[in-house]
């Protein structure tokens, strides 16, 4: 069967017909569901049924605006479709009455409008020009929030499976050359050139080869792979198929973390539908190329994101890393040549094959081409997912896309690359983001999580947080990581508890260097990065903790004292009632006092004082 074109025309007709009908679309990614999307869906269906409206109700995945969840889109033919934010069930009637029945958008609830060819509505930001999207490109994320991820029809009608159709008529090495030309580098964090990796596996000798997709996204603060898997599962499958065809593999495995049940469900459904249509399985599109994909659910171990540990886990063993070389390209799954790439890398492949390597290489910087998906979290106004061209600066992401720091507070640091990355200060906001510039600044691209922190965040506490994480997740195989991260953590705990000494800083630096150069795998080699970058950019905070026994950000409880200001306190007694350990004493209408010995520094009293008379110092 080589008639994707015939299949496509019918499917495109159906898709066009769907777009030409009035539609209400609810965002049902994990984030949308967490914000109550299913309840909103039910409320909309009830409302449509009660009023007997001729409107289709559909769902999509996350469009990326987590800050606006639950999000609902209303599209009437001939007018722009409007995405509404913060739509809880109680707002549904207003929305339907206004936009669907009254044909006028409910401007005060609208987040953005997507105009297409239609004349824009007044008073609603147009998506491409709105603050959140103006500096973004939409390539890997182009279907997110736009199509129904559980419909293979939506995928095919939007250009899906055209890449594998094109690839099977190409020479294998030409495909690999196209990927090389695109300059695509591994999106899982390492940044290894994807085309070169494929070449190695292609050249490796073996009767059987495997494609493995690393979907064990474990970095705290990163959810782009989840969003892609939930929003465009077929793109990942198609990317794996193209890889399989070009290196000569007929079997693929997706290793997905078990914490992503919705992603696993949608992937299984996508595989089933693709097989039903002859787009996966034996003799794909009449080409003689066979390819199957199965899903392996992880069992809860961060280290399994490391490629060789992941392979051991697929083989049913403890997920501990192997010594490299041999690299997986030569001896991977079951000791066979294996091409292992991350979700976002595979999802980029169909776009590169369809539009050509040069198109992809036209975006980005000299050594980091294309676009990258980032997750924006922490103390910012717009949390969510964004896709930007490489080379954009951290400051543009913070101010233009993320909408600045929450509550008008001051920016302090951005953590890039999860527990393996580093914290970058204000001076580095002008840094153009690419693989190499981030590494020279002491951080790394990692998988793409950006956690923004404001002035109330203690950097020693942040370093402690990450070390606590890596220390718990260290698999224990090699001594530098198992023992080294523990010692780093102990030192950081001591410093935050006010027991730090002058030798602690040089000791931290020395130990960090030893771990970096001697740990077996990337988990250990990068684990000291949060300590090293905070020491590099925020050394004064460490010194304040050690020398002055003070936490400048007012976070570390052992170094805080709570004081009631005598001239402000009116003795109302509210703080006294709020104190869980009865550390506050004072007669009514007389100045209250906090007993420092009893106080557990929980801070519960501070917000109760209407006169701001309690301060922490």
């Amino acid at each position, binding site marked *: 069967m080589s008639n994707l074109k015939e299949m496509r025309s019918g499917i495109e007709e159906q898709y066009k017909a769907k777009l030409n009908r009035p539609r209400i679309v609810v965002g049902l990614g994990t984030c949308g569901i967490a914000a109550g999307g299913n309840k909103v869906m039910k409320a909309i269906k009830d409302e449509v049924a009660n009023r007997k409206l001729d409107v289709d109700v559909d769902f999509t995945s996350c469009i990326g605006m*987590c*800050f606006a*969840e639950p999000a609902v889109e209303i599209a009437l033919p001939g007018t722009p479709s409007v995405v509404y934010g913060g739509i809880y069930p109680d707002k549904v009637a207003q929305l339907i009455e206004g936009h669907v029945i009254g044909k006028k958008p409910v401007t005060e609830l609208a987040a953005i409008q997507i105009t297409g060819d239609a004349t824009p509505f007044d008073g609603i930001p147009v998506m491409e020009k709105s603050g959140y999207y103006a500096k973004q490109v939409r390539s890997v994320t182009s279907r997110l929030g736009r199509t129904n991820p559980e419909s293979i029809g939506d995928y095919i009608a939007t250009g899906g499976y055209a890449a594998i159709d094109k690839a099977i008529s190409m020479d294998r090495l030409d495909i690999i050359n196209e990927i090389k030309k695109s300059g695509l580098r591994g999106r899982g964090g390492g940044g290894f050139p994807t085309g070169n990796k494929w070449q190695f596996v292609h050249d490796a000798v073996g009767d059987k080869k495997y494609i493995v997709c690393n979907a064990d996204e474990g970095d705290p*603060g990163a959810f782009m792979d*989840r969003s892609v898997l939930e929003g465009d599962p077929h793109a990942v499958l198609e990317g794996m198929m193209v890889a399989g065809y070009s290196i000569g593999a007929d079997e693929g495995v997706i290793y997905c973390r*078990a914490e992503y049940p919705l992603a696993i469900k949608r992937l299984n459904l996508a595989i089933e539908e693709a097989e039903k249509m002859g787009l996966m399985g034996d003799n794909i599109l009449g080409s003689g190329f066979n390819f199957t994909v199965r899903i392996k659910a992880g069992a*809860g171990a961060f280290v399994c994101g490391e490629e060789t540990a992941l392979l051991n886990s697929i083989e049913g*063993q403890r997920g501990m890393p192997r010594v490299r070389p041999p690299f997986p390209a030569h001896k991977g799954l079951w000791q066979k040549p294996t091409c292992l790439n991350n979700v976002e890398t595979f999802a980029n492949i169909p776009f590169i094959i369809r539009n050509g390597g040069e198109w992809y290489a036209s975006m980005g910087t000299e050594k980091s081409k294309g676009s990258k998906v980032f997750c924006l979290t922490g103390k910012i106004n717009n949390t969510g997912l964004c896709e930007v061209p490489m080379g954009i600066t951290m400051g543009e992401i913070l101010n233009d896309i993320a909408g600045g720091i929450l509550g008008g507070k001051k920016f302090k640091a951005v953590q890039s690359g999860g527990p393996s990355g580093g914290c970058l200060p204000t001076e580095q906001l002008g840094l153009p983001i690419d693989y190499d510039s981030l590494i020279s600044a002491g951080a790394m691209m990692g998988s793409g999580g950006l956690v923004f922190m404001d002035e109330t965040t203690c950097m020693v506490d942040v370093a402690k*947080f990450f070390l606590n994480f890596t220390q718990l997740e260290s698999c224990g195989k090699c001594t530098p990581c198992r023992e080294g991260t523990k010692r780093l953590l102990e030192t950081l705990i001591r410093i935050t508890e006010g027991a730090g000494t002058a030798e602690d800083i040089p000791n931290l630096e020395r130990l960090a260097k030893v771990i970096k150069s001697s740990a077996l795998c990337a988990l250990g080699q990068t684990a000291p990065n949060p300590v090293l970058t905070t020491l590099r950019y925020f050394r004064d905070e460490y010194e304040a903790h050690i020398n002055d026994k003070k936490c400048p950000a007012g976070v570390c409880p052992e170094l805080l004292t709570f004081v009631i200001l005598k001239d402000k306190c009116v003795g109302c007694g509210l703080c006294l009632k709020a104190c869980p350990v009865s550390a506050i004493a004072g007669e009514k209408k007389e100045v209250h006092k906090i007993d420092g010995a009893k106080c557990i520094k929980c801070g519960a009293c501070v917000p109760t004082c209407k006169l701001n008379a309690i301060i922490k110092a």
Partner: protein
Amino acid sequence: MAVCKCTGEQVESPQDVQLNELLDHYRGYAGGLIPVLQGAQEIYGYLPAEVLETISQELKLPFSEVFGVVTFYAQFHLKPRGRNIIRVCLGTACHVLGGSKIFQALKDELGVENGGTTEDLRFTLESVACIGACGLAPCIMINDDTHGRLVTSALKNILEQYK
């Protein structure tokens, strides 16, 4: 195997039947141990020692290897678990937005520590590194439901939904 209370005989419980079906499916399947353990935990709610014995014999793997895999992965449990599993996210984003306060409030409310199960087996409380809903921090997961943008005062009502 369960023991019949009248005769003292060993009888096959419905759960054992399910386990056998699971083992039949994965016998001779390379790398089947983890899916079998995941399936067995689904069936029994946790991984009792006898079940691990059976798995080791049926898959022809040393018991030490089975036990080694079980204790390596955070998802596997050797003790009975609550009917509802609360996972409190202590990831970076939740951390900076007060996730530990949510965790403390739940510990106080349920009277258990991290990893503990309430006496009535209603809840098990755990901390997790990140559930990937950072945009809605601070958040928790109860079974497969994610609850986001939490404040401590909302917890009581949320817990009420799970019996």
